[in-house]
């Protein structure tokens, strides 16, 4: 049962990644692109967790947590660049 659920979930997130890619490529706005990239980070974290469940090991959860911890920083930097130009004022 869990196999099927994993397959379905990873299919969904894979599709989501492609949609993110679409949004990053065609915008139309820079803010859209940044938002799509941030969403992509979230989706990748989800896929890592799914992969960890499938493999039955805890190491991927940890990796997912660390990606979560660091991953949003670049989004913040992109946004600050758009809003203020200078990211460290």
């Amino acid at each position, binding site marked *: 049962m869990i196999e099927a659920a994993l397959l379905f979930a990873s299919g969904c997130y894979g599709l989501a990644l492609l949609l993110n890619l679409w949004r990053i490529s065609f915008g139309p706005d820079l803010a859209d692109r940044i938002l799509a990239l941030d969403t992509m980070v979230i989706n990748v974290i989800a896929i890592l967790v799914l992969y960890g469940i499938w493999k039955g090991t805890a190491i991927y959860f940890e990796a997912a947590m660390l990606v979560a911890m660091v991953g949003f920083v670049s989004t913040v*930097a992109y946004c*600050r660049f758009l809003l203020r130009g200078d990211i460290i004022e």
Partner: protein
Amino acid sequence: MGDGGNFLIVIALLPFIGALLPGLMIRAGRTACAIFTALPTALALTLVLILAPAVMRGEVIQAELEWLPQLGLSASFFLDGLGLLFAGMILGVGLLITLYARFYLSGEDPMGQFYTFLLLFQGAMLGIVLSDNILLLLIFWELTSLSSFLLIGYWKHLPEGRQGARIALAVTGGGGLAMIGGLLILGNIAGSYNLTDILRQGDAIRASEWYHLALVLILLGAFTKSAQFPFHFWLPHAMAAPTPVSAYLHSATMVKAGVFLMARMWPVLAGTEAWFYIVSTTGLITMILGAAIALFKDDLKALLAYSTVSHLGLLTMLLGFGTKLAAIVAVFHIINHLTFKAALFMTAGIIDHEAHTRDIKRLGGLRHLMPVTFVIGTIGALSMAGIPLFNGFLTKEMMLEEAAHTVWAGSHLALPVLATLGALLSVAYSFRFISHVFLGPVRDDYPHKPHDPPFGMWAAPALLVVLVIVIGILPAAIAGPLVAVAGGAVIGGGELPYYSLKIWHGITPALFMSVIAVAGGAIVLWLHRPLDRVWITAPRPEAKVIFDRLIAGSVTISRAITEGTHNGAISRYLAIFVVTSVLLGALAFAGGGLGAPTRELLPVPPIFAVGWIMLIVATLLVATLHRQRFQALVLIGIIGLMVSAGFVYLSAPDLALTQISVETVTIMLLLLALHFLPKTTPVESPVSLRLRDAVIAMTAGGGVAGLAYAFLLRDVGTISDYHLANSYEGGGGTNVVNVILVDFRGYDTYGEIIVLGIAGLIIFALMEALLDGPAARRLRNTDYSQNRSRDRHPLMMVVATRVMMPIAVVVGIYIFLRGHNQPGGGFVSGLVIAVALLMQYMASGFAWTQTRQRIEYHTMIGWGVIIAGLTGAGAWLAGKPFLTSSFTYVHLPPIEEFELATAMLFDLGVFLTVLGAVMLMLYSLSRIARYAGETVNVEPMDYDPADTIQVTKEEG
């Protein structure tokens, strides 16, 4: 190795150690300086003399110190008869030259420097004659080239001195290069680089198919050093050196190095047709040519220089004959030539010093003004001419005797006639030296009224001419034993052939030839004036002009190559680099062929295919959209993310973590810089160029992809298995990646953190310089603040980052501590903590964060490198190589048993350096804003609910 051996090593080292003294002692005065130059020389000479009796008995003294045994290179020395002769000459004449130079050099010349160079040269020369290892000999050989370069160019203010030094270095250094090849071949044939081993294998070497190549290369080295035709031209140009240098290097020692090498290698290389024709013919040509040019030189030192060339030719010719007797004559002539030629050079120096000219056409009649110099010079010149009762006569007779018995290319007459011609010319220029300088009427137009120099200056040449006479009259008693033992060493042991050192040999062919030479020489001198006119008008190739053209040509070619490839455009560098790599790859691929695949393709999970599609699409988009710089940065984010995910999928979670942290830091650096840069990249190159670049890029990319694909389908033996097998046992860790970083390849990591630290410091320094220059003015005059949001330091963000900070730090420490056994390590944790700190910078601004920073980032880099280095050096205390790690298990209640490894200390160094370097880079870049006139905010956030007053402080 007995006492004698120890002595040998001391002798070889003494001049080099002594070279430290003159530079210091010059402060105590010029005489003290000279004394402290003479001291090591005299000491070394004493040691040589102590060893001399044993050598004269036929013993060979040896000493060996292992240096690089893997290369066959050992610091081994030996002293046999030939070595004794040369060592005695080098040190003995060295002493005389030290005395002479004390009086010759004027007050303006830096004497300490001169004596330092002199001792360095002496050490190099001694090394050549004492080396028992040909690799060591090569090192000393090059050292003589270098130190003589310094000596010839000693008068730096004279362009001739600098040019002469350059020519000498180019010619002798070039020959040295050829000789390296020759001696390596020789060592390979003999299977040993030890001279004593090589000398025993003469037959094997002469029979080898490599013999001719080795012979030509070694002879190139010897001929260039000993100024043999057609390389003779450097020696006259080297005469721009001070006279003590000319007397020492260019009569007694350096130019004899080539002759020494030929004598040393004589038992191994001589005796073949190739040796006979190459060496004896070159020597013959050099002898006649040098003598002929010497006859028409008006510069006293040039005359002596060409005469030296001629005599070196004579020595070469004698060694070239390949008979034992000729080799012994050569040894004897080395002694004789040394005595009269050094004396003559010193005489020329005295005349130059006193009369302020050494142009023969402006001299004459000096016998009345400088009687002592006249006597010394005349004795030397008569010996050079080969007049009986002087030692030059003895060897000239023996040489002519040898020439009379040698058949050259089937002709019995060729050699005797040509050798007589050489002797005739030699008589002519020697007589000219006497008559045109000393004889004739006293003139009243000398540039300076000459008189005899002080005793100190003529003492050295006087001693030498006493030797000239003593050897000339009693050759067998004075020089006989030395000639016998040195000659015995040259011919490689065995019976000495019969010879007798005496003045009268009866009526022999040589006597006739001698008489013809003297009479002919006198006639030629009588005809000198008309002959000189013909010589001056006759066209002749100028070696210096040809040499200069050669150098100019090579400069043009190398400049064309350099400027063709390094034109300043990075696109061209990359194109050249990538095309070369592709070509090399294609070559390698074509050569080896590719076996059939040994592995099946693994199934591709759909989710992985999605990641693959994203990578490719994002890459294509970056390539097409890279002119929109910000968009390209966002797209790069996709690539970084996918690569990290790929690392996780391929079981490398710590690489994934490193990748994503590096990605974040890089994006921030780029954004910081981008704020002050144009937001789009202009189109600069034409379409054709961009098409070319596209083709190159696609070929290279396709090549790399193909290569990776090919490797993934085949089983290739890699080093990974070794790492996996030894990670725990050798490095004490189960995280192989970390053990590789801190243990297996710890040395690389150490180098890399140093590079990283340097990069951080350089960015800081460049920014410092940039912000002081015109860039800062432009920054100040440009407005970067249009269209800004009012949210400068939003409350939300500040609070979120404050919450994140302790979590991130704990995670960082956790990753660091467990790094050795599970995913993590100093590098990752440094990046994680850097990211946590950067968040504070972003949220509350530069000024607020900066006031809370306690440790300078520079200091952090320094401590990181020091800790890592000290950890590595700690292994020495345990008697192990640098960076050998050790580990132990510790049990501290209430914690579970844990491991302590020195690798963790090393990792701490890595951590500190990474953190410091990353923070320093971002700190440096973000300082640009302050120069652009940005204001800073010392408050943590725009609106602080705890404080209702908002303070904004402006700084310029």
